[in-house]
Each structure stands twice: as structure tokens, then as C-alpha cells.
């Protein structure tokens, strides 16, 4: 039983998704209970793997359909022939983000997403989205990754356009699937180039025989561009605000998680697929690649935050902040990549490069939590006032104390104020980036200040001010599930902020080690 955990994590939501039409007949309460149980079991399975994988540094393989699934290669064959799932610390870290975000988002959406009686489109698509993201985190096979990418983008587009009665929601869904299809086509093209040379789709096998030829660089370009497009980094960021603004609030949070998973996959491809191979043949130029990532990151930070300052639509404002926060992760990991293979025998990497990567990866987790929280509170605001325009909102603090407190926690966390988790990862990034190049650290701090300014604007205009009950469209109190989702996320933010050492030592540091180790 225990050695089947990797495949259970992917198949549980998949089976549950196709059970939805059946459980939908039993009524909403029972159906929601079943889904919440399944998501809790999913999180339990993920945390069961933490002692083995993260603390002891083991790598778990799962070969689909083999007699002994825990073996990487089958007896008599020297290379992997089947679909292999691989759980190392880094993919476990990605999986934990998906698990926590999915659970809290679904808790929130039980109270906010209305469905007609006995229809379960939303929950089916939601669970399919979860299955796609889990598969993307754990698979070790390029074509399998493509299939999960398509599952997540098709169900994601359908969810973005879920409220088809709204005027612009279907067009937002169209934009999302358009950009996803272009990205997956590019990705498949890159995979084809890899397959043409090495005759395998297995990431680890390709890495072990990689020749670093010119064609490999072309394949790498295709794959990295596809991943950056889906993650919403700067040159391809224009779909982000339109899509995030029109989707239901819980789906904006899920799209953010999807962006984080794609970003993690991009880092995994940079190191595990196209990294230095065990055969010792040539290397990619890490310094150039690192600088490309750093420039993309700084541009993302700056353009995202400046565009956010002038927005009046609360969801578009948060979406531009999502672009800006992606920049921090790219900056942190980019510094790590740039000094990864420098000529000084790894001294610079040990001195500050690894810390920069820890900061960047830690920021992915923190950002997933507080951005999720902010998107969910924006959903509450949108429900209360019936509009997303900040000019039409005032004095929500008099009515919704919980939402106010939770929004403040999220806003202070995203701005990097000490007791919350955004501060820890941002401090790691500032310190290490300062040693690499002081100018970049100063830009990062400046962007942080602008973030605080922009969220103070939101807080001042929508929560402060006189109580105006005539503007409230829907005054029903929040349901228990909605409150639970918000409280869990706020508690996670505070706990991570107060005890960052446990998380960094337990999950983040092993993840970075697994990512950068040279096989």
C-alpha cells in the first residue's frame, strides 16, 4: 500500500472527478463533504511522504504497470520504458503547494459558487484541474507532462468561463485556452526535438545521455518559452489580468497555483533536464541563462507593480501584483542559476547563490498562500458590492470583521512586513541578491514599497470609511466553509512567518538541494 502513494495522489482526484455526476444526486452537502474528505486524504498522503523524502533525502520512483513499481528500470532493460513518476524533495514541495491551495480554495468555494440543483460541473472541473496540477508536479515523463498540462489548461479554461452569463467571462476563457494551446504546441515541439535525438521521453534518462548539441538548445528554448508563457512572466503577461479578473475568485487562486506549478516545472527542466549531465559532455552557459532569467524577473516586478498602481478594478490590480511577485521568484532563482556553474568551483554558489535560490523557492510557497488569500477576499468584496470597481466600495470593515483582518494579513504579507511570511522570503532574496548586485536588491525593495502603497489604496478605499448599507448587494453572512478556508490560509501565513526556520530546513532546503544536485 505505502509504495502506491505516488500514483494514488494523482488518481484520487481523477476518480473523484468522474464520480461527481453520481454523488451530485446525493445533494450538495454530502457531495461537498466527499470532496473535502478526498482533498484531506490527498494532503495526508503528501505529508506522509515528508519524513522519507524531504528529511532523509530519498527519491521515490513509481513505474506504472510494472511488477515492482518502485524500481526505476525494469530487469533486463537498461533504460526506462514505461511512464515513471518521480518524487524527490522538489516535486514534493510543488505537490504540497497544490494540495494546500486546493483544499482551502475548495472550502472557500463551497459557500460562494452557486450551482443549479444536481449539477456538478464546477466540482468535476475543479477536481480535474487538481489532478492535472498534481500530475504536472510528479511526472518524470515529458509526454505525460504534456497530457497533464493539457488536462489542467482545458479544465482551467472551462472554469474561467464558468459564469457564462457574465458579458466578458467567455472571452477571458478563450484567451486562457488560446495562450495555453500555443504554449503546449511549443512544448510538444521541444519534446519532439528531444525525442528525435535520444529516443526517450524520460527526463532523467535524457539528462544522463544529453550531448548539449545545438538542437538541444533549440529544444530548451521552446520548452522554457512555453513554461514562461503559462507562468505569466513579462513578455507574455498580457493575458494574466484579463483572465484573472473575469474568473470566479476561487478560480483566480487556482490559476495562481497553476502558474506556480509551471514555474517550478520550468526550474526543474532547467536543472534536471538540460542541466549538466552525468556523462560529463559540455554544459549550457548558466551565466547567460541566469542573466536572462534575472532580466525577465526585474522587468516582471517593475512592469507588474507600475501597472497595478493605476488600476481601479480590484481583481486586475491583484493580477498585476501576481505578475510582479513572479518577478521576485525569477530574480531569486535567476541569481542562483547565474552563479551555479561559475569558474570558482562553486564558492559563489555556496556563499550566496544557494540562499538566493532558497529565497526564490520559499517565495513561491509564501506567494501561493498570501496571493490565494487576497484573491479569496477579493471574491468576498465582489460578492458584497456586486462590482469589482474600487470606486464603488466603501466601509466593508464595519460589516465583515473577519474579511478585514484576513485582508490586512494578506496585504502586509505581500508587502513584506515582519511578522508575516512574505518578509522571510523577501529578506532572503534581498540579502543574497545584494551580494550579487546591489542595484537589483534596491529595485526589489523599491517594488516592495510600491506594493505596500497599492494595497493600502485598496484597504483604505474599500474597508475604511463610513458604513454604507445601501451599496451592499448581497448581505448574507459567510458560510462556515468559506470562513474555514480564509482562516486556514491566514493561520498558515502567520505560522510560516513566525517559524520560517522549520519550513526552510524541512522542505525548502532539501528541495533546492534536490534541484541543483549534479547527477
Amino acid at each position: 500500500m505505502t509504495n502506491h502513494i505516488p500514483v494514488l495522489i494523482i488518481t484520487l482526484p481523477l476518480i473523484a472527478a468522474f464520480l461527481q455526476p453520481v454523488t451530485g444526486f446525493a445533494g450538495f452537502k454530502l457531495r461537498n463533504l466527499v470532496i473535502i474528505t478526498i482533498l484531506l486524504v490527498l494532503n495526508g498522503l503528501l505529508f506522509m511522504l515528508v519524513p522519507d523524502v524531504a528529511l532523509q533525502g530519498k527519491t521515490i520512483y513509481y513505474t506504472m504497470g510494472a511488477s515492482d513499481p518502485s524500481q526505476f528500470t525494469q530487469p533486463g532493460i537498461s533504460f526506462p520504458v514505461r511512464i515513471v513518476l518521480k518524487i524527490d524533495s522538489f516535486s514534493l514541495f510543488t505537490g504540497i503547494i497544490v494540495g494546500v491551495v486546493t483544499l482551502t480554495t475548495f472550502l472557500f468555494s463551497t459557500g460562494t459558487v452557486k450551482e443549479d440543483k444536481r449539477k456538478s460541473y464546477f466540482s468535476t472541473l475543479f477536481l480535474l484541474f487538481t489532478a492535472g496540477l498534481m500530475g504536472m508536479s510528479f511526472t518524470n515523463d515529458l509526454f505525460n507532462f504534456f497530457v497533464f498540462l493539457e488536462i489542467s489548461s482545458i479544465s482551467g479554461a472551462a472554469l474561467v468561463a464558468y459564469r457564462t452569463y457574465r458579458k466578458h467571462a467567455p472571452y477571458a476563457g478563450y484567451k486562457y485556452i488560446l495562450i495555453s494551446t500555443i504554449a503546449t504546441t511549443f512544448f510538444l515541439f521541444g519534446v519532439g526535438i528531444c525525442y528525435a535525438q535520444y529516443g526517450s521521453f524520460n527526463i532523467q534518462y535524457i539528462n544522463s545521455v544529453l550531448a548539449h548539441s545545438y538542437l538541444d538548445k533549440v529544444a530548451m528554448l521552446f520548452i522554457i518559452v512555453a513554461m514562461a508563457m503559462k507562468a505569466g512572466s513579462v513578455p507574455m503577461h498580457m493575458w494574466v489580468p484579463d483572465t484573472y479578473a473575469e474568473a470566479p475568485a476561487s478560480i483566480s487562486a487556482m490559476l495562481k497555483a497553476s502558474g506556480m506549478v509551471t514555474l517550478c516545472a520550468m526550474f526543474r527542466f532547467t536543472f534536471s533536464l538540460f542541466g549538466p549531465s552525468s556523462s560529463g559532455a559540455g554544459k549550457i552557459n548558466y551565466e547567460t541563462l541566469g542573466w536572462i532569467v534575472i532580466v525577465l524577473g526585474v522587468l516582471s516586478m517593475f512592469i507588474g507593480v507600475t501597472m497595478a498602481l493605476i488600476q481601479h478594478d480590484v481583481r486586475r490590480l491583484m493580477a498585476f501584483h501576481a505578475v510582479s511577485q513572479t518577478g521576485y521568484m525569477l530574480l531569486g532563482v535567476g541569481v542562483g542559476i547565474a552563479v551555479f556553474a561559475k569558474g570558482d568551483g562553486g564558492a559563489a554558489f555556496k556563499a550566496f547563490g544557494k540562499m538566493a535560490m532558497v529565497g526564490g523557492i520559499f517565495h513561491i510557497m509564501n506567494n501561493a498562500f498570501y496571493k490565494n488569500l487576497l484573491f479569496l477576499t477579493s471574491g468576498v468584496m465582489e460578492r458584497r458590492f456586486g462590482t469589482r470597481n474600487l470606486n464603488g466600495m466603501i466601509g466593508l470593515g464595519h460589516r465583515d470583521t473577519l474579511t478585514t483582518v484576513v485582508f490586512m494579513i494578506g496585504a502586509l504579507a505581500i508587502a513584506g512586513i515582519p511578522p508575516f511570511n512574505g518578509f522571510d522570503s523577501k529578506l532572503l532574496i534581498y540579502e543574497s541578491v545584494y551580494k550579487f548586485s546591489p542595484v537589483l536588491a534596491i529595485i526589489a525593495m523599491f517594488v516592495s514599497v510600491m506594493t505596500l502603497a497599492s494595497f493600502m489604496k485598496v484597504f483604505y478605499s474599500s474597508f475604511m470609511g463610513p458604513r454604507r448599507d445601501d451599496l451592499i448587494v448581497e448581505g448574507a453572512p459567510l458560510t462556515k466553509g468559506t470562513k474555514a478556508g480564509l482562516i486556514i490560509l491566514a493561520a498558515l501565513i502567520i505560522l510560516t512567518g513566525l517559524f520560517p526556520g522549520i519550513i526552510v530546513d524541512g522542505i525548502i532546503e532539501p528541495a533546492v538541494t534536490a534541484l541543483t544536485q549534479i547527477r
Partner: protein
Amino acid sequence: MLSIFLYVTVVSLLILSITSVIYKRNLIKLVIALNIAESSVNLFFITLAYRPDSTAPIFTLAPALQELRMVLPSPQALILTNIVIGFATTALMLVLAVITYKNNGTLDIRKLKGVEDHD
């Protein structure tokens, strides 16, 4: 020699479809362009699998076991998956385009730009 034609076709189809995604403004035309891109990737994989003077990867067609010479079967199996996925994507995109038309009365991307000024 033979495969050069095919690779040139693949690359020109990809360039054609990406340029038309950038320049075309009709939502349904964009779906056609994306379908062409998918077909080009499919053709790329099938061309990879092709070996001259060999048979289709069906066991009964193999002339004799000792001189078994087949094209690669696995890319063909993967392309079957990709064709079906492409159909799903096309169907979803067309549905969204039709609902967009019903809500806004146009399929032109330039006229749909009003989305940004939505309150």
C-alpha cells in the same frame, strides 16, 4: 533527402500559424490557425518515426520475424492522443467563441477590447 520536404513543411506550417495567430482578428480564424499548428507538430512526430523501406507497426504486416523492420510505433501512439486532445481543445474554443458572440455581438478582437474598461 525525403524527410527534408517534410521538415520544411512542418517549420513553415508552424511559422504560418503563429504569424496568423498574431495578425488575424477573427476568433474562429484563430482556432483554424491553432489547428494548423497542431497538425504541424503531429506531422513532425510522424516524420520522426518514419524509416525508409519498412512496414507499418502492425504485427501481422511484418513480412518475417528475422528481417523485422518497422517504423517507430511509440510516436504514432502519442500522436493519436494528441489528435484527440486537439479535438477537445477545438471544441472548447469554438463553444467559448460562440458564447462570446452571443454576449457581445461580434467576433472581432479589436471590438472586444472594451473588456478592459469594464467596471
